[in-house]
């Protein structure tokens, strides 16, 4: 086999390969991408980035996700994979606290943020706002899933959203938003609150 021909062919592929690699946000492993020889780049291509892991929801549905994506976002999954207890061929990570619908959303979030982390801030924020356009039930499920999986940026995002539902609103509006029908105060207590803090009402 003419090594020279292969070399030429691979170097022809180089620009495309480089574009693919940067799109997948692959961090150079060791010296693989520092050395620009075509053989090394091809080796990096064939290596770990496309490795997938299996997540199992509470409804026993299996989701296959790129390992990079989940490891970057979820501390729990990162720890599980790092300490080697996860066998890529056979194991699935059981997530009994998270149902399929929520897990799908979480995976969606992590995948988008891994692939688009080079986008500008406004686009990401717009996508996040669209992502959280769910009903309250879905929002709290997402929060609990993010808490269980320890996904810092999703947690901060959801806490921020709930905080904004409270900030700047009057008490009656807050009660309506959160559907708090019974505030649990006696009529005297409620009246005293209204007298003491009229700017809240």
């Amino acid at each position: 086999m003419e090594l020279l021909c292969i070399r030429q062919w691979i170097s022809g592929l180089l620009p495309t390969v480089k574009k693919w690699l940067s799109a997948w946000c692959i961090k150079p492993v060791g010296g693989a991408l520092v050395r620009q020889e075509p053989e090394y780049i091809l080796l990096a291509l064939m290596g770990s980035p496309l490795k997938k892991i299996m997540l199992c929801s509470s409804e026993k549905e299996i989701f296959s996700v790129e390992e990079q994506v989940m490891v970057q976002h979820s501390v729990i999954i990162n720890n599980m994979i790092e300490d080697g207890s996860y066998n890529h061929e056979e194991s699935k990570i059981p997530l009994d606290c998270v149902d399929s619908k929520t897990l799908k959303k979480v995976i969606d979030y992590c995948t988008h943020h891994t692939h688009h982390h080079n986008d500008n801030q406004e686009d990401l924020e717009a996508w996040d706002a669209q992502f959280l356009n769910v009903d309250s039930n879905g929002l709290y499920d997402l929060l609990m899933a993010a808490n269980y999986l320890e996904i810092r940026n999703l947690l901060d995002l959801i806490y921020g959203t709930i905080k904004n539902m409270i900030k700047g609103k009057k008490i009656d509006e807050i009660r309506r938003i959160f559907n708090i029908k019974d505030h649990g105060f006696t009529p005297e207590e409620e009246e005293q609150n209204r007298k003491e803090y009229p700017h809240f009402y």
Partner: protein
Amino acid sequence: MASSSDFALSVPSELESVLRLRTVDYFITRRPWLDLYGVNVRPVAPFGSASRKPYVESALIHQCLPDELLFEVFARMTPYDLGKASCVCRKWRYTIRNPVFWRVACLKAWQLSGVVENYRILQSKYDGSWRKMWLSRPRLRTDGIYVSRNTYIRAGVAEWKITNPVHLVCYFRYMRFFPSGRFLYKNSSQKIKDVVKFMNFRSSKVDSVFGGHYTLSDDKVEAAVLYPGMRPTVLRIRLSVRGTTPGANNRMDLISLVTSGVNNSEASAPEEDILGVVEGWRDDETHNPDVPAVSHKRGMTPFVFVPFDQVETSVFNLPVEKMDYYVPG
């Protein structure tokens, strides 16, 4: 005529024997309390107590979210919003009573005193309750701007039919405080919604926003700001903080406002030292003969606090004709 069939109660045994003895029908005296013997009456909880009704939880957030996550939501809110949230419902009130929130807020608001001193004051004055400290101890709010609206009348130029015109002039003193010990001062006739975007440290000289330093002891504020330039002048402001409701801290009364001159060496001292420079000066003291010490007597209306989220809608934005002349309580 009452007959035995009208009575719901069964005739107690001791009376029955009596009944049998007599031939005349006696009316059975009603003793309704006999009905209650042997009946269990459940105690009714007082109105409003948590055990009164079977607790049907309608709010989704309480059904779904464990308490730790609710805590995390509150941990990210400002103390003002926390106070508001504790009026929403009982569960939130009890969650917010947790001293952690108030400790964080207190240590940040009174950071100038230092952590050790704050703990000492906590024990001696406020019974170890951070929440009490937050509500009772005077502090300078940093989530908005203190505004003092002053008006005066100036004679105008007579023209045509208007023979004795007067103009009502309105100007504002704006003060914005920071927890680090610095503050910003602006004196202008511009409305608050136009001024608020310049009340930060990035403003240039053109915006005429001046920065100075202040100290707070109890409810007394001592602040000093240097006007740089050819004849450097120092403005010394003494204020006392109070509130319309406990913990509001939304009013400041002007005790004294003195402008005096500083000499060149004092003017070129680093900005943080301005308070040290003017410490202990008498009211009529000036270190620059070109700039006499003037203790101002006019334009001393008390300051009213306007939080940032109310700046756009505040009554201070109204033009002079539409303003109510009011004395801030």
